[in-house]
């Protein structure tokens, strides 16, 4: 390419850029139902309405409590979560899942995830003289205050909301699975239909409307407790006051907001 050709194509760049810009503006206006010039302003108003409506995200800081002594491992929470959040029914796709820990007398701990599909036909744990103790641990996204998954996302598709919930923007997610690798709790999965990362949202659409998350709603023994850590009267704050609380992998400094009571030292 000589200099003349270069300068010619450079001249073409400006009308092309202007055209692309107009297209983008037009697309944005179509989305919000406003004309081009209003699009930006309308978006700003929407963002403002988020804070000025009757729900104030900055006044909440959500967390969950799990009381291991009450959990009967019925997996109704797992079922309810799949129903509420349209998680694929087949195994290996979970926003919350159930683990059975079996600790034998020689100190070995084995973990199995209870399979929802074969739940009805599921055999109860074996009575074994070699078993020292066994129990169930429900797991879910810990909604860390210092989330590693948010740090690693290359396109900024995942973020923490003001009320302490980690969400994924499915429109931005490129499905690179980096966050799935980064989560120390294995709480994320790649949704087989959308091919984007998906995870527990504490049922954000329910919580904001004053409903409990689906798993907490259906738990028959109230082993799961949901609440707002900024409200002194919430059940969760009382739960953290009345029980000795552990979190999973505290050494990683992720500051998880799922609090376990009576958690066994073997649980990872």
């Amino acid at each position, binding site marked *: 390419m000589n200099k003349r050709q270069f300068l010619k194509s450079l001249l073409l760049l400006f009308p092309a850029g202007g055209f692309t*810009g107009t297209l983008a503006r037009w697309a944005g206006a179509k989305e919000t139902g406003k004309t081009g010039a209003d699009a930006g302003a309308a978006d700003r108003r929407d963002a403002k309405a988020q804070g000025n409506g009757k729900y104030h995200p900055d006044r909440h800081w959500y967390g969950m409590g799990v009381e291991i002594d009450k*959990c*009967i491992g*019925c997996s109704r929470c797992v079922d309810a979560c799949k*129903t509420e959040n349209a998680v694929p029914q087949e195994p290996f796709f979970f926003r919350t899942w159930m683990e059975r820990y079996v600790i034998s007398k020689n100190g070995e701990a084995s973990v199995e995830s209870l399979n929802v599909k074969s739940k009805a036909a599921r055999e*109860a744990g074996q009575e074994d003289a070699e078993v020292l103790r066994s129990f169930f641990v429900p797991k879910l996204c810990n909604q860390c205050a210092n989330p590693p998954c948010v740090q690693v996302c290359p396109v*900024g598709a995942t*973020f923490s909301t003001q009320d302490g919930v980690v969400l994924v923007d499915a429109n931005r997610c490129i499905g690179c699975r980096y966050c799935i690798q980064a989560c120390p709790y294995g709480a994320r999965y790649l949704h087989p239909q959308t091919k984007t990362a998906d995870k527990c949202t504490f049922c*954000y659409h329910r919580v904001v409307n004053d409903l409990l998350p689906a798993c907490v709603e259906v738990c028959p023994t109230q082993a799961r407790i949901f609440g707002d850590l900024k409200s002194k009267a919430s059940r969760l704050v009382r739960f953290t006051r009345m029980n000795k609380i552990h979190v999973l992998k505290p050494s990683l400094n992720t500051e998880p907001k799922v609090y376990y009571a009576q958690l066994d030292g073997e649980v990872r």
Partner: protein
Amino acid sequence: MRIPEQIRRLTLVLAIIIGSTLIARFLLIPRSLVSEELHRSSTIQRELAKPVSFAGTAMCQGCHEDVASRVRKGFHKNLSCESCHGPASKHAEDPGAVKPFAPRDRKFCPVCHGYDPSRPTGFPQINPTAHNPVKPCFTCHNPHDPVPQRLPLACSACHAQIQRTTAVSSHALLQCTTCHTVPAQHKGTPRRALPSKPETREFCGKCHGVAASQKDAPKIDLTSHGGTYLCWQCHYPHLPEGRG
């Protein structure tokens, strides 16, 4: 000093490129494409637009107050309606057209009540193959007010957690009935006949007061200790501290 012609032209071209990039970035590209704040708020909007499947117990109680009040007094008092009946928000929107799921199958109840050694002690469990085979559970047990066919023998059958706590405390040797009077009906219909709880400071003073005859109980002067607070506002009676 004379600036060479090529440098001047190059500078001009560079200035045009930089200028047009800035125009494209800040004027032509709409804010909604680059603003992180707007992306987040639109994600939240999409999240909030998701449909609710589980209506919540409060919604059920609005119409089914009779059943709800019965459930509240039985062993299933802590259960949400939708734990057994499944997601019912469609039923709440149009009660005539959509009926919620009603479990009739013998496979349903053992999901919680089948014996499993990993389940916590004290949770009622049966062996589904040996426990009255063929009959559906609701022929003997009303799921809205389940009554065990054989009454529990000890308090720890239901209150296992309290029993475990007390067992390692300095109150380990006390019977439940030392402090609680338990009506006979409490075993069958626990919420309709509640056990009594101590009500006064003097009750604890019977063992812990200076004049008490109990030898190994720590003694305090009721008139000077703790002001007007009741004992259990500071000391948890199932796990009292202060033994050292």
